[in-house]
Every structure is written in C-alpha cells, then in structure tokens.
C-alpha cells in the first residue's frame, strides 16, 4: 500500500457513502503478484452503477486471471469526493491499491452510453491527465476505450490512443501484451501503437487512414469464454446487486431499432449446463441473494427449460431469488413466472399498433398480448409496459394504440380476477436512430414534435384509471441522438460542454441542456445537423467498422420496415445478415 491510504481515510469521514471509494471488496484478486503491466478500468459513472456493469466484471476477471497482468478499478466520484480531492491536492486513485491513475501502464475506459462522454473528461481532469491523445507523451498511461459506444467511436476518438471495437475478452489481453512487451524493450508510445494496430478490433485513431477497415472483435468460443465466477461483492448496494448470468450474446429477434441486437451478432449461446455451473459458482463464491438471467431476450434462450430445471431447485435450497427480467410477451411462459417473485411483470411491446410493430420488426402480436391473462390468473397485479415514441412512420393512431393496449389489459384482468385494480405503468423512451441498425439513416423527431407526442399520449392515458406514465426527457434524447451519430469534430464539443460544467449528463437533476447547446454553438455546430435524416449514399462516421452485418442487409431491412413487412426470427433460419463471417450463429 502506498502513502495515499492515510490521506484518503481522512477525506472519507466527510463524504457521502465512503465505501464507494475504499475498495477491499470480497473476491478482490491478488494485487501483489508480479506483473508485466497494470491496467486500471475506469468507469465514468458512480460506484453503484459501475459495479453493476457485467462487461467491467468480465474484463476485470480476464485480466486478473492472466499471470502477467493486474487490473484495478476506478469509478467517477460524486461531487463531494471530487471537491475533497481538489482541496487536499490529491489525484484520482484506484480502489484496490490507491494508486494514482497517472501511474498505470494502461487506463481502460468502459463507455456504455453517450451521456457519459463528459464524465471521461471529468475523471481525466481529476487524475491530472491531458484530455487529447496528441497532448500526452510517453510519460502518461496509454488510454484505451471500449464498451457499447465503440459502435461509433468517432466523437471520443481524439481522447484515446486505442479503441476496442467489439468484445474485449481477447482483444484487451492481446493489446496489453503488446504494450507490456513494447514498454519492456523501450519502445515509444507511437511505436507501440503501430504494433497494436493489427490486433482484431483495435482502432488506433491517430494512425487510421481513410478507407481502412477495423473488424469488430468477436469471441468465437462463447461456451468456454471466461466468466467472473468469483464476482466482486459491492461494498454498498449496487443498482444490480446480484449474480448476473449471461446466457447468450446477440439476439435472434432482429428489432430494427436495436443497436445491441445487431452489434452483438453472431448469436452465440452457452449451454444450460455451463450456465448453471457458472451461476452456482457465483452464488457459492459471492453469496448473493439474487440471481438474474441476462441476455437481450432471455425468454428466447433455447435451453431455458433445462436451465430452470437445474436452477430453480438450487436457488430454493439456497434461498436465492431467481429473477427473470425482460421477458418478451411472445416467450411468456406462465411456468416461468410462477417461479419468480410476483412483484411486477415487465413487457416491451415498443409500439402501440400491429402496423408499427411490423415496421420495427417487434414480433409481438395483439393475440400474444392476450397471453398475459395467464399471468393475471396466477396472481400478478401490476405490469410495466415499455414503449418508444417517435419511431419511423409513427402516426397519432399508433400512439393512441398504446392507450388501447392498456384498456385491453385492464379488460383481461377484470375477466380473470373479477375485480379492478390492475396497476399499469407505461414507460416511453424516445426513439434514437443508432449506428449499425437498419434505422441508422432515419431522422429523429424534433424536440417540439416529441413534446407534442408525449403530451398527446399523456392526455389519453390520464383517462384510464390505474395507469401511470413516465417518459424520457426529450432534451437528453436529442443530445444522445446527436452524439450517437457524431463525428470527430465532436470531441471539441464534448470538451467545451465539460468546461461549461456538463458532467453526469445521464442524471436528470445534473443535466445541463444550456451547456450543451452552447458547446455545439461555440464549435459552429447544431444538434440538428446530427439528428437529421442521412442520405443512403453519405459516408457515415462509423462506416469503417466491419460489424459483420453488411450495409446492404441494413438497407434491405429498412425497406422491409417501410413496407410494414417483418423478418423472421433467426432461430427459424438464417436471414443472411453477413455476421456469419465473424463466427458461427449457434441458434439456426
């Protein structure tokens, strides 16, 4: 332990939730082993959010399991702690050994959401590290970024030396090896970056030439891919405070708005036996009282029944609550629901009418909604419904369809239970056209139009008893859309917004719309330039990434959407998206 511990302890007495900053979690790996290089995972959100992130847990485990490397963690501190650091002239420290971020060989930022971009700068600022890669000499750590936002890394490309596009399990280790060897033989940062450039999934912005492609990194043997069987047990209650079991990657549904569904192709499942073994090990090693099955559409997992047969009795014996979230209506099995806690059902029809659901390829039919009657029969009294507003081709009739669904469910409930009292909570996100989806060219509804749609829906739902309505802020959605399809110039906008006080943008109470509009304006830009419709022959900032799924396929899917035609689930047969070239889909 270095000399920062004492100084840190003095600060901790005066901040909220000090256990966010002290480390020492159960299952922390050996931090004293000899190493060729060390890396600090930086998560640009608070501890309790970052500790819930499966990606970080997986990669942390992968690196610490390697004999040559050690990984530590650092989360974005809350304002009170940041203030204390500044007052006491302390740099941002890692949790495990309280080492200044500046002293690591590599810093690896996990960026899962566009509204976290300013927090990257916030952390670098507190760490005393220059923002731009071009401003950092050999004395600084090499900065790596990865995570879901690497789908379009251009807005933050100037801040990083390397960006991992795709899955990090193998890519991170390969890169770390090259960096460690390079540092050992005295290579300069630019020499090391040249060597890294060839690694699958590695995008080196400073060396990238027009026309070059970066192929997305993919784990081919998902069955045996490493998994954190000894997960860290968070010091304070995390948002998802449980053992999380990833059943498969990718999604066979092909919803046309869903970035994750296209980005994580090919679709790779783990066997039920392997999943069960991992799940049990997590419970034995961490002691969590809850286990959740996590995938993009858990109910579609092909060996779900077998997995339940093993896990349900195990969890009962261990007094572990087995949570089965985000079920799709079409995969609703009352059997499954019978075994989970009957607090609330969660379903995501996404759109109010069959027509619009066909456009977005959300294969939930009105008839399937009627299956919910079974759930009411076995005792469910409340239901959460997720929708999106502002979808391509949406009309007021589609919005009214959302209210119709609520009425229909209330009717079903009454039929089954002979009483009123079904609680429905309707939650509406704003459609955001995202890169690497069939809707990547779409325009986002204007701010004013979005407010009109939200108000219209609110007025309809107000008339139905027992329905509560919540919606995403139109402002944050416009910003998210502008950044999601952003380009290199945006690094200047992000820096400007940070300087104007923007950080923790995902927190409504901290969101500074004015700072962002001014930041765009100061850089001679507007958000509307980014939320407009893109023409199909325009070169898009993320076109250089080969995700496996061809642009022709995305365009074909878009056309089918306009024709209100659906595409079958990949489990019924391959639709020829192109992802097969990166690895085998195990579901068709």
């Amino acid at each position, binding site marked *: 332990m270095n000399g920062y511990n*004492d100084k840190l*302890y*003095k600060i*901790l*007495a*005066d901040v909220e*939730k*000090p*256990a966010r*900053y*002290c*480390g*020492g*979690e*159960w299952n*922390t790996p050996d931090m004293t082993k000899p190493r060729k290089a060390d890396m600090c995972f930086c998560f640009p959100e608070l501890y309790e959010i970052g500790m819930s992130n499966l990606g970080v847990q997986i990669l942390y485990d992968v690196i610490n399991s390697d004999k040559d490397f050690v990984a530590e963690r650092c989360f974005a501190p809350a304002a009170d702690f940041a203030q204390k650091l500044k007052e006491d002239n302390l740099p941002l420290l890692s949790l495990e050994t309280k080492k200044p971020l500046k002293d690591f060989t590599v810093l690896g930022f996990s960026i899962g959401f566009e509204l976290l971009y300013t927090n990257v700068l916030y952390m670098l600022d507190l760490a005393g590290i220059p923002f731009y890669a071009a401003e950092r000499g050999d004395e600084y750590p090499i900065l790596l970024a990865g995570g879901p936002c690497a789908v379009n890394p251009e807005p933050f490309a100037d801040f990083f030396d390397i960006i991992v596009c795709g899955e990090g399990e193998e890519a991170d280790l390969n890169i770390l090896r090259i960096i460690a060897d390079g540092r050992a033989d005295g290579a300069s940062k630019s020499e090391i970056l040249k060597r890294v450039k060839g690694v699958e999934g590695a995008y080196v912005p400073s060396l990238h030439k027009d026309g070059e492609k970066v192929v997305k990194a993919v784990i081919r043997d998902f069955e045996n891919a490493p998994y954190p069987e000894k997960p860290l*047990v968070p*010091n*304070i*209650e995390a948002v998802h*405070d449980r053992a999380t079991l990833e059943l498969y990657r990718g999604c066979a549904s092909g919803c046309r708005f869903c970035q994750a569904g296209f980005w994580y192709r090919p679709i790779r499942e783990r066997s039920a036996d392997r999943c069960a073994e991992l799940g049990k090990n997590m*419970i*034995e*090693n*961490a*002691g*969590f*009282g809850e286990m959740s099955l996590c995938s993009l559409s858990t109910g579609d997992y092909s060996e779900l029944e077998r997995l339940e047969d093993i896990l349900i009795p195990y969890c009962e014996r*261990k*007094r*572990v609550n087995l949570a089965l979230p985000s079920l799709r209506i079409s995969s609703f099995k009352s059997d499954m629901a019978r075994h989970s806690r009957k607090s609330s059902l969660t379903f995501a029809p996404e759109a109010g009418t069959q027509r619009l659901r066909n456009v977005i390829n959300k294969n939930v039919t009105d008839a399937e909604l009627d299956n919910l009657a079974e759930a009411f029969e076995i005792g469910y009294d409340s239901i959460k419904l997720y929708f999106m507003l502002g979808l391509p081709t949406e009309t007021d009739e589609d919005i009214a369809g959302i209210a119709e669904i609520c009425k229909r469910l209330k009717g079903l409930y009454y039929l089954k239970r002979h009483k009123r009292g079904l609680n429905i909570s309707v939650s509406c996100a704003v459609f955001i056209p995202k890169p690497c989806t069939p809707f990547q060219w779409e325009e986002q509804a204007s701010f004013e139009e979005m407010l009109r749609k939200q108000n219209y829906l609110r007025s309809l739902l107000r008339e139905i008893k027992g329905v509560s309505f919540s919606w995403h802020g139109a402002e944050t959605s416009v910003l998210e859309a502008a950044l999601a399809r952003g380009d290199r110039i945006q690094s200047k906008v992000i820096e400007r917004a940070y300087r104007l006080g923007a950080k923790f943008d995902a927190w409504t109470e901290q969101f500074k719309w004015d700072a962002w509009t001014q930041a765009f304006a100061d850089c001679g830009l507007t958000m509307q330039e980014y939320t407009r419709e893109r023409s199909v022959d325009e070169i898009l900032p993320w076109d250089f990434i080969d995700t496996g799924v061809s642009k022709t396929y995305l365009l074909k899917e878009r056309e089918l959407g306009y024709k209100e035609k659906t595409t079958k689930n990949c489990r019924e047969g391959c639709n020829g998206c192109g992802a097969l070239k990166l690895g085998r889909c195990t579901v068709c």
Partner: protein
Amino acid sequence: MLVLKYVKRADSCFISHIDLLRHVSRILRRADIPVKFSQGFNPHALVFFSSPLAVGVASIAEYLAVDTDMNGGELFERYNLAVPVTLAAIETFECGKNPNLQGKITAADYVFDTPFRQIDLSGFQIEYEKKGKTVIEDVSDKIYGSTNADGRFALRLASGNTSLRPDRILSELGKRLRTNLALSDICKTAQYVGTDGGFEDVDEYLKRV
C-alpha cells in the same frame, strides 16, 4: 445460539451498518452456514447484531449472534474463510439463549489515537448539527471514565439506549487541535453490559448466559 466476536477495521470501517446487514447474509450463504429462519409469512434469518458502529470508526469488539445447529469451532472456521481479514472473527461463544446484545449493552471503550493524553471531562461539551441547527450539549454524564493504558488515550462512552457517538468527541478534539482528525483514528476496544452500578465486559457476560 452462537455469538461471533469480530473486528471491523481498515477499508471495512467505511461499510455502513445497513450495508453490513446485507453483507452478513451473503457471508453466511457463501460460508454455507445453516442459519435458522423465523416462522411466518416473511421468514428472516435469525441473526442479531450488537449496536451499530459509526461509519469510519474501527472496532475489535463487534458481536454477531447466529441461530444455528453448527458447532462454534466450525462456524468460526467457515465464517473466516468467507470474509476479508478486515471483518475477521476473533472468538466464538456458545449461549443457551439469544443474549439480546442490542438491548443489554450500555457502554463501550474507544481508543482515540490522537496527541491527547488526558482531557478535563467535567462539563465536556460537544457541538453538532441536528436538523440544520447547531446543538451544544454537555455530555460529561455520558462519559463514564478515561484511561491512558499503553500511552493511548481511551474513553468509556454510553452506548445503547442513550449513547454518545465517538465521532462527535473526535471532532471536538479536532477543534481543540485545530486539525481534522480521521475517524479511522478511533477504535472500539470493548463493549459492556450494565450490572448493578457497574459494567461487565460482554465477553464475560456471554460466557455466563
């Protein structure tokens, strides 16, 4: 009923009592300790704690009662394999019944690792914020004595129903020294149950019940 005496120190000092409750249920699960559960609609594990420790304060005398059929030696061993050293158990006691420590404990000793060797306790006042207002309170009746064993300054403070938080004493000491003292410089070293006009160390009490 088994009672574990355990420490809470270093990083673990910063875990709040509420979080500790959650941790203990995980510790018992991963240690595979068969804890008995209450009957009824909402069964809960029969696990009982001594009074909460202020966040940031260390202790070498915390207690955790567990209703289980396991023997003390095995519980001790399994528990210690399932916790970080900063929460390690140091002793076990077997009791015929629930010792009800939360209800019985009346005092605790705290060592203050500060430059102070002795302070005048008569009319000792502390100042703290309560609901946005500054309160000044004479707490000398809640300080039961001071010692200076091995050169370390220690106070016996009221604990339980009427209690005096050691962190408030510390901030008063800090004010006198014109410096900010770290809470981790306080360590609880013993807890006591009340007897007729005196105190009995919880360790002795547990051997008796």
